[in-house]
């Protein structure tokens, strides 16, 4: 009985809210669904992603081509099934026109699969960076304006060799995103003659790195550490306790603010760590400086934001900006199953704070990567200095389509 009651009330409310309202195209607000992880391991990153997306909307004062932008937010906890449930709710229940999200790799693949069942809605990625999302069974209505994990590491192999690291050991988490990061690094590094004798794959959220530290060979010049925030700090602590002294090469989310704020004794040894990333705090192009000042103005540290926008803020900003720029290009016209809108998105050259982005045939971004190095400023704060900027990186990492293989535990390999 109770169930009857609850369901009837809810169902009646839904019918009343959505049943009779006809869709008018022009002048009506455009609803954009925004999905990020506000729970679970990436909660802090998800909140910053939301900030980035909000910035893109606020830049246009919440209006595009005379239509108001209405953001409907949803949260997941970085699990694919939760992300699909949240997305389904936004699309089918809240009736959003455009969907922006999700945050992490596995979620991205799952939401892409779901997007195929909703051909009249346009899905734009949040910050998920799994290669497979756009390489395996791509969906015609899923767009990704950010480069992914492997692309973020292009240029780092050469930088490592320039530093004199001829043999390295890889320590990375055991799932899709680190696979692609390691591939981005190794495909270049191996081609130029570097050697990777040992790869250690550790579980995500692992607490104990003793066995990995024991496996570090004496003759490697550096460690390639592709671990996310808390895992990286744990590893550093234990490596320090074990008396390790090898220099580090970092993945894109390894040398984040978490690590730069690291207070341990080995803090100084972080200076000189190189990493590949789609964002660099100290990049001095005026567009990027403006982005950083806008972020700091809108979200002071006292409100819980980072001192400088994180990767998630930037990437969500870029994807939300793409959604709005595309809407502007078609003058807010989403008729005919959003056909025109999608065409505009595919052909658009997106201006982002870190340079121009174009899409390839699979609707995946071709963009810029920064090679950064950790430096210490006069106040003793650590920050990332831009060593090099690599433009126009595509998803094939410069290889031919036939010879390209997706990154996995064993691909690529050069012991």
């Amino acid at each position: 009985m109770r169930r009857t009651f609850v369901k009837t009330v809810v169902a009646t409310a839904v019918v009343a809210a959505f049943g009779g309202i006809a869709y008018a195209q022009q002048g009506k607000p455009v609803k954009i669904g925004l999905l990020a992880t506000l729970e679970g391991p990436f909660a802090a990153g998800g909140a910053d992603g939301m900030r980035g997306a909000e910035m893109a909307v606020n830049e246009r004062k919440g209006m595009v081509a005379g239509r108001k932008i209405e953001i409907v937010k949803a949260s997941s906890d970085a699990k694919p099934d939760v992300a699909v449930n949240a997305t389904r709710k936004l699309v089918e229940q809240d009736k959003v026109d455009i969907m922006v999200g999700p945050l992490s790799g596995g979620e991205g693949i799952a939401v892409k699969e779901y997007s195929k069942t909703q051909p009249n809605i346009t899905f734009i990625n949040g910050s998920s960076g799994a290669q497979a999302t756009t390489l395996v069974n791509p969906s015609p209505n899923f767009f990704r304006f950010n480069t992914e994990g492997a692309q973020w590491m292009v240029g780092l192999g050469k930088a490592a060799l320039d530093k004199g690291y001829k043999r390295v050991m890889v320590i990375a988490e055991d799932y899709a995103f680190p696979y692609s990061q390691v591939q981005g690094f190794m495909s270049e590094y191996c081609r130029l003659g570097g050697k990777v004798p040992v790869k250690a794959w550790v579980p995500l959220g692992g607490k104990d790195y003793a066995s990995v530290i024991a496996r570090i060979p004496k003759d490697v010049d550096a460690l390639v550490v592709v671990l996310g925030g808390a895992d990286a700090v744990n590893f550093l602590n234990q490596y320090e306790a074990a008396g390790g002294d090898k220099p580090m090469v970092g993945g894109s989310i390894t040398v984040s603010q978490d690590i730069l704020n690291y207070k341990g004794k080995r803090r100084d040894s972080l200076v000189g760590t190189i990493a590949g990333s789609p964002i660099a705090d100290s990049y001095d192009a005026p567009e990027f400086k403006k982005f950083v000042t806008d972020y700091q103005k809108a979200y002071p540290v006292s409100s819980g934001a980072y001192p400088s926008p994180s990767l998630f803020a930037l990437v969500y900003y870029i994807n939300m900006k793409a959604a709005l720029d595309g809407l502007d290009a078609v003058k807010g016209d989403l008729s005919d199953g959003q056909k025109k809108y999608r065409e505009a998105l595919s052909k658009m050259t997106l201006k982002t704070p870190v340079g121009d982005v174009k899409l390839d045939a699979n609707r995946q971004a071709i963009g810029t990567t920064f090679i950064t190095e950790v430096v210490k400023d006069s106040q003793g704060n650590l920050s990332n200095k831009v060593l090099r900027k690599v433009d126009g990186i595509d998803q094939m990492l410069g290889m031919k389509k036939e010879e390209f293989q997706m990154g996995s535990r064993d691909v690529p390999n050069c012991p």
Partner: protein
Amino acid sequence: MSAANWRNAMNSGAGRAVMMNRGQAAVALPLPGVGGNRGLSLISLISGIGARHVVVLAFVLAYPWFATPFFTFQIGAQSLALGLIALSLTFLGGYGGMVSLAQITVAGIAGYGVAIFGAASAADASISLGWPWWVAVLISIVIATVGAAFIGWLSVRTEGIYTIMITLAVGVAFYYLCLQNYSVFNGFQGFQRVHAPTVLGINLRDPLPFYYLVLFWSLAGYFFVKYLLRAPFGIALQGIRDNPRRMNALGFNVTAHRIAAYAVAGVMAAVGGVLLVWYNGLIGPGSVGTSWIINILIIAVLGGMRHPIGAFLGAIVFVLLQTFAIDMFDRERFNLVIGMVFLIIVLFSPDGLLGWWAGLKSRFLTPRGGVR
């Protein structure tokens, strides 16, 4: 019915409990006294059907015709599938006195089975065997049931909090096995695109057919449990819950009976697991992790463990909250709402929603001074 009859019924019935249905029960229980009891329970089942049963049944059958596809699929089908898994816990916990936290693990074994034996896309597609869906489903349910019996065999000699601990350990161990094994479970990524099949031209992935599929199995599970509780097997199980030593003295093999109960609950959890993996279209370690272990317990406790319907009520409240809490409150703090509602329900009614309902009924519906 005399104690001797009970004992005879139980000793012949316990071993067959896994496959027990009406027909086989009749074969297994030839004693006249027991047969009479069965007829009685049938009559009392029919006479027990009241207006509310008809209304609820009509409602759940008609539901997809006035609800949106979203409500049919995400709220309706998901609630029922989760309810079926929670029902297996209600059966074990409420009637067997064994709170098993490993029910989502059993469901997960079945779900992984469907992905591994059937068709799914892993990053490394070579894992899935691609057998016909019905073979994959049957094998998965059998394996999950054997797994459930094994979990039962491990834990039945413990009581209370120790049962909880040991089943929790099994659940967490299975989670880490899925997370770290790559040759069979495909590690962190699990399996994508595990879709419901197309049968006789009906695509079971569509909201409407999928809802009815889940509804069918939920009703089957519900009535199966209702029947079983009045069958000698269930009555003896409740006896074991209340006084295992006495039941043992009466000649029941308490351990075997409990393991059989685990296996029966395992069948329900396995069917729920298959439906859930089809609902999600994917399975990974996250689907069997600690958060889901706790969620199933929350669902069962929320609804109330006194009656099989509690599992489904709990699931509906749970799914509605998970889906809509974010709209009701500050978006960064919506988990607070979920926690508060759970707390309020459990705080004011230790017996969940059913306890609330019973309290309201006795307060308003019972004539003053009268006894019903």
